[in-house]
């Protein structure tokens, strides 16, 4: 294993220059320091107060794992130039197996140098990277830690890891409770712990002790988790001549579960996402489609079909210029199956699953934003009280509190009283609204009408007499923001034909906002 360790990463992620004293703390304990702080005597493991005592100027920062991991991603990505099997073990710590790369670059030493060359430009002076190569991850990590020089690397030859580890203190295991007991038993180094009989360790310390014992002997707890898609589930079809019609591809996709699933089913895996790679004659396209829930074999085939459909029927720009020559279906993520309850007579047991499926299907046809779900929001007008958010952003199977009217708890002064109008216009149309004198009705800033309403005309329709009305209710919205400031007054009017409307005046013009149809 190769391990690349950036000891100062928690400080680097905060964007602090390394020549300024800084320390990153978790629960008032220092976990990382800048070189300048180390020079002043601040050490990892110190209490915050002690660190400040050693160096009064030290900047104390709280640890932000998310930020560290986010900023560390380019480093991991750079290493993928060497091998695709990169595992990010934590912020500032990344590793991969040496087997292939080491042979390619001509030995572990050459590989370590190559890794240094790849990582340094990405780090660009933001701290140093230490590289360790050893049999196991734990040993490689300690090797990286013991590489003192800024660009140093330590290579432990194969089989030498137990000897290398023997000299380290028992505290390096990172198991405070266990190492406390072991120290009191007189076992101060990994070597002395490794010399014990594994059966005795297991008998006295159980599973935890056994794992620690494996580490101390230079073995790994378990092989590392690699970034590798499940290649054995991928299926590729070559079309000769290139397939021009969707149903040719769809037929292949339909057969996918039957060709690929039997191999996967005994293992009990469920496929989560799906990547279909299409290789038309010249260009290639990849459509990645994630799913929040595991898909059945038939749903998987359907999804592949919809994806292809959406892709082949895209607008002039997105459409491939030639037929599909090769189609690869590749499961993106597989998880163990936990079982699924079906209705007894083939009925629909889980409606949310069904609905999620149809949403995915329509999204494949019309685009990801095409299907939305409603949510309550605060607001005065009927159109402002409900917001639409893309269905892709929510889990339809989960409870959504914002869909209940009680979600909005704050009062909205000037809100139109219930019942709400059944027809709310997205873009209100201007209307004619006049008083008995024949002049347009106006509303003053204090909410007084120039005259009582007389007649109203919607669009080019006939003039209707207003028999009753309520309001006007003035609304002075967002007066603190000159760009979105709106000042209007709303009224409910009932016409002689019994129809009721919500009208508003804004800037001397009357608008039809909603109809109580």
């Amino acid at each position, binding site marked *: 294993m190769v391990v690349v360790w950036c000891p100062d990463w928690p400080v680097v992620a905060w964007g602090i220059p390394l020549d300024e004293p800084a320390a990153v703390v978790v629960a008032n304990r220092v976990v990382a320091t800048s070189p300048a702080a180390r020079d002043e005597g601040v050490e990892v493991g110190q209490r915050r107060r002690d660190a400040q005592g050693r160096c009064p100027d030290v900047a104390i920062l709280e640890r932000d794992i998310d930020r560290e991991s986010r900023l560390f991603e380019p480093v991991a990505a750079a290493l993928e130039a060497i091998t695709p099997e990169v595992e990010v073990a934590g912020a500032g710590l990344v590793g991969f197996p040496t087997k292939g790369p080491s042979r390619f670059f001509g030995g572990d030493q050459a590989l370590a140098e190559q890794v240094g060359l790849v990582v340094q430009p990405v780090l660009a002076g933001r701290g140093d990277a230490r590289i360790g190569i050893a049999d196991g991850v734990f040993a490689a990590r300690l090797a990286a830690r013991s590489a003192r020089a800024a660009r140093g690397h330590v290579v432990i030859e194969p089989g030498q890891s137990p000897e290398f580890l023997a000299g380290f203190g028992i505290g390096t295991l990172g198991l405070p409770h266990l190492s406390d007991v072991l120290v009191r038993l007189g076992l101060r180094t990994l070597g002395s712990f490794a010399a014990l009989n594994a059966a005795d360790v297991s008998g006295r310390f159980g599973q935890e002790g056994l794992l620690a014992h494996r580490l101390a002997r230079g073995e790994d707890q378990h092989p590392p988790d690699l970034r590798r898609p499940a290649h054995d589930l991928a299926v590729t079809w070559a079309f000769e001549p290139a397939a021009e019609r969707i149903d040719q591809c769809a037929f292949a996709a339909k057969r996918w579960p039957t060709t690929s699933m039997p191999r996967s089913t005994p293992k009990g895996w469920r496929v989560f996402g799906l990547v279909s790679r299409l290789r038309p004659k010249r260009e290639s396209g990849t459509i990645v489609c994630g799913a929040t829930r595991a898909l059945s074999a038939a749903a998987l085939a359907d999804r592949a079909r919809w994806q292809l459909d959406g892709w082949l029927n895209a607008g002039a720009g997105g459409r491939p210029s030639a037929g599909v020559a090769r189609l690869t279906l590749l499961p993106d993520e597989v998880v163990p199956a936990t079982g699924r309850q079906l209705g007894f*007579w083939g009925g629909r047991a889980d409606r949310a699953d069904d609905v999620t499926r149809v949403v995915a299907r*329509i999204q494949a*046809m019309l685009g990801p934003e095409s299907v939305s779900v409603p949510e309550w929001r605060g607001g005065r007008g009927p159109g402002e009280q409900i917001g639409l958010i893309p269905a892709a952003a929510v889990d339809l199977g989960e409870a959504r509190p914002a869909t209940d009217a009680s979600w909005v708890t704050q009062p909205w002064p000037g809100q139109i*009283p219930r019942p709400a109008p059944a*027809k*709310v216009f997205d873009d209100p149309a201007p209307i004619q609204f006049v008083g008995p004198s024949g002049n347009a009705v106006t509303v003053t800033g204090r909410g007084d009408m120039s005259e009582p309403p007389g007649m109203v005309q919607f669009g080019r329709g006939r003039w209707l007499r207003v028999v*009753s009305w309520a309001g006007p209710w003035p609304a002075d919205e967002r007066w603190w923001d000159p760009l979105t400031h709106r000042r209007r007054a709303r009224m409910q009017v009932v016409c002689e*034909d*019994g129809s009721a409307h919500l009208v508003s005046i804004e800037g001397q013009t009357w608008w039809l906002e909603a109809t109580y149809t």
Partner: protein
Amino acid sequence: MALRAARAELSPELINKIRPVTLAQERVLPVPEALLPLFPWGGLPRGSTVGVQGSGSWSLAMALMAESLGSQGWLAVVGAPSFGLAAASGFGIRLDRVLVVEEPGRSRWGAVVSALLESVDMVAIDPDAAVGARDARRLAARAREQESILFHLDGGKSWPTGLDTSLSVDIEGWVGIGQGHGHLQARQANVRAVGRRSGAPNRSVSVWLPGPDGRLVAAPANVSEFRPRLVG
């Protein structure tokens, strides 16, 4: 386990055959009590087409949907961007069971509605152009086979054939609003059944739409039978 394995070997046709038989009357969705006289089957038959027309039709649609969907049913609103969801919620439609497709597009409209009919219980449509006869036949058949309901918010104006159930609303008047005081509170209306399969032609009920509590309730004078006028 054995049951599941045995079930997997059955063909879908056979499953349909051995499925417990239900009578047509049992395959209806509940409707508001005040509207029961308009539904001779005691409810809204599953897999049918329904339309509403007249002033106040959308409120009637919402009240009917709320009762039929219950707490579990899903509603999809396709191509009706002015469908007032706040009002729908006021009539009792659960907003966490609502999907909205605001712009299905002219060319994909049929495919979207057809896909939705497969998975949700009710699809409300307000087409902005006439629906072709072939599309209409296909969608009606899809609704029948999936036992979902196609709800025409435009009363079936754009539909080439008649609807199974068609209701028409006539406004009587509003309560709570005066000349510059109060606000709209409740509305009295007459609802008539006019559909070809309604079975109760020209029967009408008087309802509050909405009533003072925001729901559809029967107005005191309940059913008024249509009395043929004497000619001459």
